[in-house]
């Protein structure tokens, strides 16, 4: 499997789309669609053909890159990366489809940015040289910021700036931690190394390790996002174009969770164990605060954005419970939230394209004119509040069950978040689709067109996936049955 090829062809496809848009209008979206389809096809095929066991990290590429610092271009994957890369490619497809009609200006450049940020995200999920990881971590930001800043809504510059500065400043902290780790490696072995698997063997004193761990933790907590560094997210999500919101909620937040699992928990098992109570409290506060804030929003996209904060709180709580069940729950939450929040943002985009407003007070009674849209909205809202039978239920159930073994009290409080999510989910659904139909200025009832075939395809594929995973979660969990080998180490460290 050649991840480099995947990333390269995504960027190349984006560049071609940009170029051909200048020759023939509307060709960019076809190029983008074709690229994503081809790349996903290649990825799935090579997954089927290859028979390697990915339960531990399998190195794909390792070439010397910057020799003066012994930095390498090294990519490796395990099941965690593979699941997240698959999610990324799936949502990439959704993103292209939801932008189909929405983006009318500077289309070529738009698709270039979209595909470039997807390539960067895939790089983040697969890089095992820490410098390379940081490189991709930043590279995915640039096109994402451009998406918000150029094609966003009324307050786009502020949102893009906030998004960029939050992530950039926090990632500089991570860069310092990365450099310090390389320096420690130099002290212990006489050789500078940025290679992830070299770092796993380092012995850190507990005092330095806690600072280094915090450097990584802050960067990932900003991305996740967790209280108190979450405030970029509502703005960025609200102002981004639909595909931008889908990508942000669906995949970009997952890079934070991925970083927590891959780096914070594995590189610093004992200090993360020391830090775990704080992180768990942050998770629980995020769950409740996100739910409360979501309930109070008038703006559809802001509501969904706050619900993301709430759901990511479950991930944080589960990960810092050091427990196999909670770990599986966290990974399922990543997938389920990626699908359901992506779907909700796409839905908000569809509604916006009909009524040109994100304000709940301008909506209502759309069920009459658009029953299919309403049905999907109900299903996705139900997914978000964890209706049994849908993926989110399994995910949150696992997280809570796992977390209960370590933090019984906190988990009980966190479970209140489920009630909160039911409330804001119903508020969302009712105020958009139920009640009296709104009247426009001339006194006629506002009626909106129902889903088109393209939108139907988007939503039904997402819903099918949510149901399938909800009914048969082993589809994903099967890969993570023995994933707790690494976590066992963390457990031991925690027990000490």
């Amino acid at each position, binding site marked *: 499997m050649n991840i480099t090829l995947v990333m390269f062809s995504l960027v190349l496809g984006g560049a071609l789309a940009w170029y051909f848009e200048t020759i023939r209008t509307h060709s960019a979206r076809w190029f983008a669609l074709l690229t994503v389809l081809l790349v996903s096809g290649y990825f799935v095929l090579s997954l089927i053909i290859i028979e390697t066991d990915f339960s531990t990290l399998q190195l794909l590429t390792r070439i010397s*890159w910057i020799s003066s610092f012994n930095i390498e271009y090294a990519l490796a994957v395990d099941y965690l990366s593979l699941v997240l890369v698959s999610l990324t490619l799936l949502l990439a497809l959704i993103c292209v489809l939801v932008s189909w009609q929405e983006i009318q*200006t500077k289309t070529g450049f738009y698709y270039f940015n979209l595909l470039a940020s997807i390539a960067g995200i895939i790089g983040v999920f697969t890089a095992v040289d820490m410098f390379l990881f940081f490189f991709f971590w930043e590279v995915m930001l640039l096109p994402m*910021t451009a998406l918000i*800043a150029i094609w966003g809504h009324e307050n786009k510059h502020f949102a893009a700036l906030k998004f960029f500065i939050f992530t950039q*400043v926090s990632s*500089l902290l991570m860069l310092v931690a990365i450099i310090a780790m390389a320096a420690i490696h130099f002290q212990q072995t006489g050789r500078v190394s940025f290679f992830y698997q070299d770092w796993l063997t380092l012995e850190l004193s507990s005092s330095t390790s806690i600072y280094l761990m915090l450097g990584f933790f802050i960067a990932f907590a900003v991305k996740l996002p967790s209280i108190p560094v979450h405030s970029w997210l509502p703005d960025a999500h609200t102002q981004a174009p639909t595909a931008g919101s889908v990508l942000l909620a669906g995949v970009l937040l997952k890079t934070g969770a991925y970083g927590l699992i891959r780096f914070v928990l594995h590189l610093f098992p004992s200090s993360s164990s020391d830090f775990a109570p704080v992180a768990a409290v942050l998770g629980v506060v995020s769950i409740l605060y996100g739910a409360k804030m979501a309930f109070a929003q008038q703006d559809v996209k802001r509501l969904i954005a706050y619900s993301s904060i709430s759901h990511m709180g479950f991930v944080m709580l589960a990960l810092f419970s050091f427990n196999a069940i909670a770990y599986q729950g966290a990974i399922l939450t990543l997938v389920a939230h990626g699908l359901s929040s992506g779907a909700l943002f796409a839905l908000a985009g569809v509604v916006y394209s009909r009524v040109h407003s994100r304000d709940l007070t301008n909506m209502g009674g759309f069920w009459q004119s658009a029953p299919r849209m309403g049905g999907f909205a109900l299903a996705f809202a139900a997914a978000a509040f964890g209706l049994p039978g849908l993926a989110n239920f399994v995910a949150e159930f696992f997280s809570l069950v796992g977390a209960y073994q370590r933090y019984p009290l906190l988990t009980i409080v966190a479970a209140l978040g489920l009630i909160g999510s039911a409330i804001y989910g119903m508020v969302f659904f009712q105020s958009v689709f139920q009640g009296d139909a709104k009247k426009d200025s001339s006194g006629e009832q506002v009626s909106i067109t129902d889903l088109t075939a393209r939108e139907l395809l988007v939503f039904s594929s997402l819903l099918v996936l949510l149901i399938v995973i909800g009914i048969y979660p082993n589809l994903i969990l099967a890969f993570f049955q023995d994933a707790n080998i690494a976590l066992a180490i963390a457990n031991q460290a925690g027990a000490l």
Partner: protein
Amino acid sequence: MNQLMFFSLSPLLIVSFGTVLSLLLIAWRRSQKLILVFSLIIFSVAFICCCSLIVNLADPVQITQLIKVDNYAIFAFMMVLVASMVVALLSSSWLTHSVEVHDEFYILLQLVVLGAGILVASDHFASLFLGFELLSISLVGMVGYSRDNQYSVESSFKYLILSASASSFMLLGIAFIYSQSGSLSFASDLFAMEHVANEGSNQFYHAGLLLFLVGIAFKLSLAPFHLWTPDVYQGAPTPVTLLLATVSKVAMFIILMKFWFSQSAFLTTENSMTSVGNLISTFAILSMLIGNALALKQQNIKRLLAYSSIAHMGYLLIVLMIVFPQGMDLAWQSVLFYLCAYVLATLSLFMALQLSQAKGVEMDMHVSDWQGMFWHSRLLALLIITAILSLAGIPLTMGFIGKFYILNVAVQAQQWWLIASLIIGSGIGLFYYLRIIFVLFEGVNEGENSSGLSFTISPSAKVAAVLSIATGLVLGVFPDFLTKLIFIL
């Protein structure tokens, strides 16, 4: 003077001989085109000379007590030469608007280059002062060169007076240092120093060091000695601002490094490191924070770049905190790489600034004048974007690798406060850097014909723009090309 000495001094000799010839050339025929071509020839011959030197020179060559040519000096001089060539080309388009023949401008430019060359190669306070004054006095002439500009007199006076006071501070500092060490050479005073240190009465030495650093800080526009920078940047003609921002900064920083590392053997031996080191870190922290904070609200591009250059010199100052001998190589490498990235980005920005200015008119450019440039003059906009991202230290550009170097040095020197202020500073910096980029992408106002807005760019400028974009990106992704060059040594 043997052949090796002659060989290693040749770039300087070429420039000084060229300056004399240019004077003769003016006596023979006054033609602006001729002198431009002649200056370019001088610079490129000197550049080629440097190239062959950097490949062939194995060890530093000491030429009398005054001058020591090593690879760092040659590399820095190469940067100076490239920057001056761009300055010469840019000023040729700006100087055409009046009927006068501006030969003197090019003579002054050559003198600036000569001064910078002496400065980077000097190993002695006398040659340092010589280069310093040559650089400053010629720059004063150039800053005030466009007489009809409203800010011209103000900015040249400001620069003159502050340069003069900076050099008098410096002279006094040198005198104090001399009074303790008994030698004006950088290298040889160590033995003398030790006995001073043992006596414990080294207040004079410290005072001298302080005054000397203040003099340098004026020229590097480090906070709190930065007040002249924005005014002079704004008032000077754009090519001269470029010269101030690149050549003068590079030369001054290189000489600061040379001086500092020659003293550091003394500084590490006893605890005087802490007091002088604290001073340097104060300069650094203040420059990073003040420079970035004051740049926030600037609308005028030149003033904005002035403040951002203050911040960048603050970042670079972190390198001086490494004083153990094993770290020297890394420190030099970091400084040269960072300066390279900084010079390239500044060159690109000023090039774009000059090209987007209406021809022949010297006016203040504001950030909003670049609005929507990405949609009508893509090449120029890309040039600006890569330069800005490089200054902001975002990956894919050289600036990121430069910042990576600096952070490496800072971690090795364990300067956590400096790291913290670097992070805060670059966080603030993103505000104004990103604002410029957003302006470039902003839609053009309705009603205006977007094709009419595009700037006409000559083919040679196009080539230069493509070249600087490509260099910035290639070296940003594969920095090995440059580091190998620095470390052919």
